[in-house]
């Protein structure tokens, strides 16, 4: 490699590669970050005004943030999203974590089949699942109810929990559980004292994934939700299709902050897990 590194062709290729990577990272991030300053625009435009480019303080304002809380146009959807997201996450987390514990156990029968079934909601194109759920839940009278959407979101969220919790259990030494039993711990105590601390980061990450999936889900809500079930994405959808108001950019900024928080939490947990794995091995 040392000889090749000196050739001018290699140098050009190396710089080309780095430039290409930088351009790709800009493509990934710039569209998200550009919304943030625009949400402080004092004018109802979606582009940078001259004042903003001169960093004139008068060209910036918080008016679109204030207008989020005018009336219930955005507060109600926010509340709906939280209620639906939290309920779906609780269901997905409890069922998903239990299933992951079962799947990780060496004695689990039919593991391959069962995991395929449990993962299937995550890897089915949501439009297909959405149509099926619309027919099925309508026939049960669950269309246009919070319950229907919560059930649908929970089944989409559960695979995330199964995957993240399974990852924390990979390489788990099950003889430890037998040892705990032999030392007199009943299965519940053994779980709480031995397994729970181990899987907790996975449970938290998984539930964050599940919550984010529900918080951002739109297809199911479009098909099954009525006026009473308007969620944040549903309201943004209307906002984009009807008339884009700069309030939308303020809401978007809020969602970007949420994404940053969720992402940092999951990354922090992951790194802590990696550190713990190093200590253990």
């Amino acid at each position, binding site marked *: 490699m040392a000889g090749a590194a000196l050739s001018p062709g290699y140098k050009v290729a190396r710089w080309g590669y780095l430039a290409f990577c930088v351009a790709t990272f800009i493509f990934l991030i710039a569209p998200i970050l550009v919304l943030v300053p625009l949400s402080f625009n004092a004018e109802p435009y979606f582009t940078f005004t001259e004042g903003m480019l001169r960093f004139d303080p008068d060209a910036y304002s918080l008016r679109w943030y204030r207008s989020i809380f005018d009336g219930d146009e955005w507060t109600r959807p926010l509340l709906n999203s939280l209620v639906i997201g939290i309920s779906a996450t609780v269901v997905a987390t409890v069922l998903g974590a239990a299933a992951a514990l079962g799947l990780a156990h060496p004695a689990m029968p039919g593991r391959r089949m069962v995991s395929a*079934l449990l993962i299937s909601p995550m890897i089915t194109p949501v439009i297909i699942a959405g149509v099926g759920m619309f027919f099925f839940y309508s026939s049960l009278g669950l269309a246009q109810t919070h319950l229907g959407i919560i059930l649908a979101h929970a089944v989409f969220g559960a695979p995330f929990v199964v995957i993240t919790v399974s990852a924390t259990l990979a390489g788990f030494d099950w003889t430890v559980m037998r040892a705990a039993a032999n030392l007199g711990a009943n299965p519940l105590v053994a779980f709480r004292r031995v397994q729970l601390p181990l899987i907790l980061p996975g449970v938290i990450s998984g539930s964050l994934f599940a919550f984010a999936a529900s918080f951002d889900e739109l297809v199911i809500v479009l098909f099954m939700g009525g006026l009473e079930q308007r969620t944040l994405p549903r309201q943004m*959808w209307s906002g984009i299709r009807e008339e884009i108001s700069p309030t939308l950019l303020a809401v978007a900024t809020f969602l970007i902050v949420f994404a940053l928080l969720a992402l940092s939490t999951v990354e922090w947990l992951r790194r802590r897990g990696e550190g713990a794995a190093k200590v253990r091995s």
Partner: protein
Amino acid sequence: MTPGEASTSRSPARPLWRRALGPRLRAAGLALPLVAFVTVTFAGPMLSLLTKSFYDPEVADALPETIAALRQWDGDGAPPDAVFAATAREFVAARTERTLGRTANRVNRVVSGMRSVIMGGSRLMVEAAAEAEAAGVTTDGAFWRETMIGIDARWRTPEPWRALRDAGQRFTARHYLKALDFERGPEGGYVRQAEEWRIYVPLFWRTLKVSLGVTLLCLVIGYPIAHLIANSPPRRANVLLLLVLLPFWTSLLVRTTSWIVLLQNQGIVNDFLVAVGLIGDENRIAMIYNMTGTFIAMTHVLLPFLVLPLYSVMRSIPPAYMSAAASLGATPLQALRRVYWPQTLPGVGAGCLLTFILAIGYYITPALVGGQSGQLISNMIAYHVQTSLNWGLAAALAALLLGGVTALYVVYDRLVGIDRLGLG
């Protein structure tokens, strides 16, 4: 004291079969609640989707006697008097209860034009029935044959009867035929539609092409950055990884909004190009509400799904292999092609499959930024669910898409193993 002795001494009464089955039952018991939940809330809907695509009882339930009587008919000429009598009775009854319109719509989907034949004819049939009752005339089959043909001469021909008979089939392939652009021929069989009238097959092709295109584009721009992240020192790698993960966690609606803000006619990119004088103010580039918009926004949304699995595979490739290739005399390009690339194939496969499958069922972004030319098959499915209310057709289109996706998974499972599909 061995563990075996301990457990025997703790529960001497436990029979052997329970000790053997216990762990299995406990493991299965933990998984069972979610299995049951997924079966009811997910497999149930999938089944009802498939059922709706070939089972359509509405007309048969609405006009039971007519459909039963038509089963005796040979399909040539006008049917026997008994059919006329049954049809008239059920039309008049349904018309009076105001349920006929729904049925007429259903029949109209099988043969267009049938709605007006049924609705227009039945109005006069209700009047004829009332007059006959007032005059004390018996309304038997012969009476109705004469009356119906008097109202609309088409009842003399087999076409409307065939339409009723076909619409009355409970189990039917007609939704699938329609979803594959077949139409009912004049003889009642199905023929492919004239090329300019085909809608769904070209749309399936377009969806396939766009999904493949987006997947390839993601691979081309995702491969270098996955490589860069995998080969950076840990601290920098973590920062770069965050740049990929932030879009992944950011709401889809937010990202779509930002592309609209950037790319629209009065958007930031066009403003910038005008300001630096690359284009004139009057010929701003249409980058959104068309296929370009769909393509750009989809690539942006799906890129992380390709980069993450690719990265996790690349991270496990020891850099020593490339050094070894170089010291054995390979040029960097040769080493990349013959040593590095083959080792990344599992990641390429997983990433491309995930990206492609997400792309093929893509709905929200094309609906918002695709305009007319950027719509995909999923938009048509949503249209039939929400607007045209042709649920049978929506179900058939979705079922076809599901079949394609399942086939892909089976291929992937054979090649790589489905259980290796993770979040990266």
